[in-house]
């Protein structure tokens, strides 16, 4: 699911010094479909990436020379800023930390902040608390395994808990690609304990908890 992108931190942001820049003459290994401008491909990529993207990384993605990509970025910046004839967009393209990323335009910060606040009430929902409890006792645990225990989809709840810093990614299963989650020290602080060992024991009932869910990843 595309929402996974929010979870992955690995990104090809920094092309190291050893990176070969795609030449203009070479046939690009991958590239943009016929008849589509570079700027359109760039804005598509910029819409889905979490981390600022280097010009070199973007050039490699679209299979075009760095120079051309740099020009297309400048064009997009002007475009979004409304200096190229169109409206001044609610978002902008900014270079931060050596790469380009789409941000909310600053004069709209307030509106967005209000919105984000309403979306994140100060108290966790029952569903989020239960999911957190499951993770606390069964960690590290994949989202699929949580879902099978809770018998509901837990994607958005997991996102909320991640956003709250109560859980974090422990590791990614190399075979299945499933991300496993574990709780953070912040949870310990909230619960007023020093380590997970201090969680009250509830194990006797847990043994049969996973039976019958073989079909769930």
């Amino acid at each position: 699911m595309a929402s996974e992108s929010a979870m992955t931190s690995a990104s090809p942001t920094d092309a190291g010094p050893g990176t070969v820049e795609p030449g203009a003459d070479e046939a690009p290994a991958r590239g943009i479909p016929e008849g589509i401008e570079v700027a359109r491909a760039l804005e598509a990529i910029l819409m889905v990436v979490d981390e600022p993207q280097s010009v070199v990384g973007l050039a490699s993605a679209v299979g075009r020379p760095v120079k051309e990509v740099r020009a297309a970025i400048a064009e997009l910046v002007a475009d979004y800023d409304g200096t190229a004839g169109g409206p001044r967009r609610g978002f902008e393209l900014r270079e931060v930390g050596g790469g380009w990323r789409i941000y909310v335009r600053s004069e709209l910060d307030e509106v967005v902040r209000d919105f984000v606040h309403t979306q994140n009430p100060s108290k966790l929902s029952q569903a989020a608390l239960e999911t957190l409890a499951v993770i606390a006792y069964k960690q590290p645990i994949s989202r699929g395994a949580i879902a099978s225990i809770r018998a509901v989809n837990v994607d958005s709840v997991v996102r909320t808990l991640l956003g709250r810093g109560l859980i974090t990614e422990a590791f990614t299963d190399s075979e299945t690609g499933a991300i496993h989650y574990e709780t953070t020290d912040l949870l310990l602080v909230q619960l007023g304990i020093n380590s997970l060992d201090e969680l009250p024991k509830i194990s006797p009932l847990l043994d049969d908890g996973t039976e019958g869910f073989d079909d769930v990843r």
Partner: protein
Amino acid sequence: MARSPEPAATIEQDAPPAGFRVTLDDFDGPFDLLLSLITKRELDITEVSLSVVTDEFLAYLRAMESDGTVDALDQASEFLVVAVTLLDLKIASLLPQGELVDAEDVALLEARDLLFARLLQYRAFKEVSAWFARSMAEEGERHVRSVRLEDQYRETTPELKWTLSLDDFAALALLALTPKEIPVVGLDHLHAPLVSIREQAAHVVALLRQGEPVTFRQLIAGADAKGVIVARFLALLELYRHAAVGFEQLEPLGELTVRWTAENWTDENLVNLGNDYGQ
């Protein structure tokens, strides 16, 4: 219109019946099987050549039975209902057509309509499921903007108000981790109290092993509930299947005498008895 997927199992038309190799897993229920047979013959569901399809359906059923793949009673019964209906229809089509429409004919027509209606319905959902698969695959290729919240917003989200005590948290975990079984429709009310075929078989075996022939009337003497009588009757059938008993009945509906014929009978036989009935 999406053709139903070809079953992995193959019918070897000209091979002897012993050559049938069928796995139940390849068919998701009797309609799936029926539909694939009809499709294979390129017949319209409403103009099914009943005879051929019925024969093939029964052949599958027989093969499944001999494979031992039909072990779950509920699954087998669905296949049987369809098979029986098909068989009825086939018989009706073989019989000379009378002019009178009697009640039985009407019942058959209704059974046919019902079977075809259910089959059509099944086919409709099966076909539309191809759309579901396609749409989900296409949508799985799409990319939606779903990026990490900018730090400036992340940092200013209202602070979490934590109100749960450690014990509350553990209780919540216990609640969440307790297996959430999908409730099963209870059948208890259908036979209350439950009668174990095995238990009744033990009673029947004990009586018979004394050596003397026993009448069925004697076998059910003292049975105070219908369920017990039925269970003892089923136990007898099971014992007959194991060649442990023989029957003697001088005239139709006359006194049924049961004789113990088992040569080597162990309690282990008894333990396995009635497994097919899930009791």
